[in-house]
């Protein structure tokens, strides 16, 4: 479908990293999180990845992501940033983008389940940078594959609902004018052609008018 997909090295990646200014220095968890994020960034940069921005998970994150419109977002799976990102995901749910979570969890047995649950990929921290690359490649491919399926499903649903609308409109014509099914369809099609409209739109208008007059 899209054979010219750029390699992941050309991806515009945004990393959402914990804000060290907000982190409490005595909070070992926050310190570990910041350190983990730093080593991941170094690994990606050494491998030639295009990190266009490292954003703190602050209240401006949604605005900045909207401005930058990255191809991929990478965030720590255990970070508080997740909820802010969730806001972005919800606000842009009609324009999905791949989100990669990285985690310190060495047990990758749940990765499959996590991916099935909607996260594009889990990257285990400490993974050698040359191993990160295939993971990101797979994440992107998988995301595109799923988006393709999603689009197909949406198209199929639209088609099905359009067919239902056309059937209902045909029914109205058959009832009102005693036409045969073929004649009713021909009349709908002719109107569509004459007015330069889609068949389903003509059918919907007929139903709307009929509801109005009912």
């Amino acid at each position, binding site marked *: 479908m899209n054979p010219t997909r750029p390699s992941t090295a050309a991806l515009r990646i945004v990393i959402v990293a914990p804000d060290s200014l*907000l982190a409490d220095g005595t*909070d070992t*968890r926050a310190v570990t999180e910041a350190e983990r994020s730093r080593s991941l960034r170094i690994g990606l940069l050494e491998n030639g990845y295009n990190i266009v921005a490292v954003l703190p*998970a*602050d*209240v*401006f994150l*949604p605005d900045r992501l909207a401005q930058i419109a990255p191809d991929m977002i990478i965030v720590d*799976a*255990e*970070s*508080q*940033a*997740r*909820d*802010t*990102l*969730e*806001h972005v*995901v*919800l*606000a842009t*749910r009609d324009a999905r983008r791949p989100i990669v979570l990285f985690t310190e969890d060495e047990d990758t047995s*749940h990765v499959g*389940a*996590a991916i*099935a*649950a*909607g*996260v594009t990929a889990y990257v285990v921290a400490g993974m050698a940078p040359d191993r990160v690359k295939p993971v990101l490649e797979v994440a992107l491919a998988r995301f595109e594959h799923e988006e393709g399926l999603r689009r197909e499903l949406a198209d199929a649903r639209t088609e099905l609902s359009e067919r239902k609308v056309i059937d209902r409109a045909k029914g109205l014509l058959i009832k009102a004018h005693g036409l045969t099914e073929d004649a009713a369809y021909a009349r709908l099609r002719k109107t569509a052609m004459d007015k330069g409209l889609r068949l389903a739109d003509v059918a919907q208008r007929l139903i709307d008018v009929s509801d109005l007059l009912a």
Partner: protein
Amino acid sequence: MSRRTLIKAAAASSATGMLPGLQSAVYAAGSDKPEKEEVKIGFIPLTDCASVVMASVLGFDKKYGVKIIPTKEASWAGVRDKLVNGELDMAHVLYGLVYGVHLGIGGPKKDMAVLMNLNNNGQAITLSKTLADKGAVDGGSLAKLMAREKREYTFAGTFPTGTHAMWMHYWLAAFGINPVTGAKLITVPPPQMVANMRVGNMDGFCVGEPWNHRAIMDGIGITAITTQDLWKDHPEKVLGTTSDFVKNNPNTARAVMMAVLEASQWIDASLQNKLKMAETVAQKAYINTSVDAINQRILGRYQNGLGKTWDDANHMKFFNGGAVNYPYLSDGMWFLTQHKRWGLLKDHPDYLGVAKQINRIDLYKDVAGAMKISVPKDPLRTSKLIDGVVWDGKDPKKYADGFAIKA
């Protein structure tokens, strides 16, 4: 009489009428032994995680044959993912989040279960000191200020489909402010609310305690309204899990519910218990804050940060004679009506059908029956919210569409 002895008594005579719920639901399966004995329960550092934590700390879990492992989580999205993929067995979780996942709003879709309500009340809406200095100290004066000084006003909740976002939306709308077009609503993790307000990033937030009281202690915010004044005895956090977990581990689910119910009972039993609870949950492993930040408001001693103090009879309750914990269908449906109202749901869901799937009243009745906790007859309840609108769960579609201000 402990539950163990009750079980023995029940087992000795299958004709006993002592445990009608357990008898029908559990003995039909042959045994009440928990299928899974170690139960990982995720929680977010907030005062209302207390019943889950205390069930473990006080050993109520062992009494019912399970071991609760409270697991501190950094984000609600993390709690959500881990519930969905099974890393967590259960969680102290936002009511609206559970419903959002069940319907697949903005993320993974998975059949979910609400086992019981964990608490009523005890959240609040904080406005910044800067706003208060300009006269915005409650809903009415905020609306006036926003009309007078036009700019972008920013308010925060804790999760897009969650409880606090819904309280924030509801409150603003009750005072004529459209939260979708007339303000900016953002998501900020609870422990970061105070820091963000300090640096002027937001005008107000809705969050659970101790963060509202903490804003007052730090001199950067004032309490504009408590959520109990928004909706007296509103549902708040729930004990949530997946439908699959309940299906595979019904006895474990019941055992955990009993342990958490007993902890809820224990917390509400006395002032001393509440203070002990505050000392426990304030520790680093749980909320990681000062005991003072927690113990005032759980005892019902409120101040608004502007010199007003009061004793609030409707402070955070964990049990309240059992009135807190019953998972009313109308409570669950309310979140759906607000999801629809604010455009998170594009179409009306089957409100009652969804609530019946998620809220496990059947299990709750088993457990409450065994513990002699009274259960209301009607799974719908009537509440009057701050704008005077009555919610009784009977016509959710009309209710959701009936608000003048909506998305």
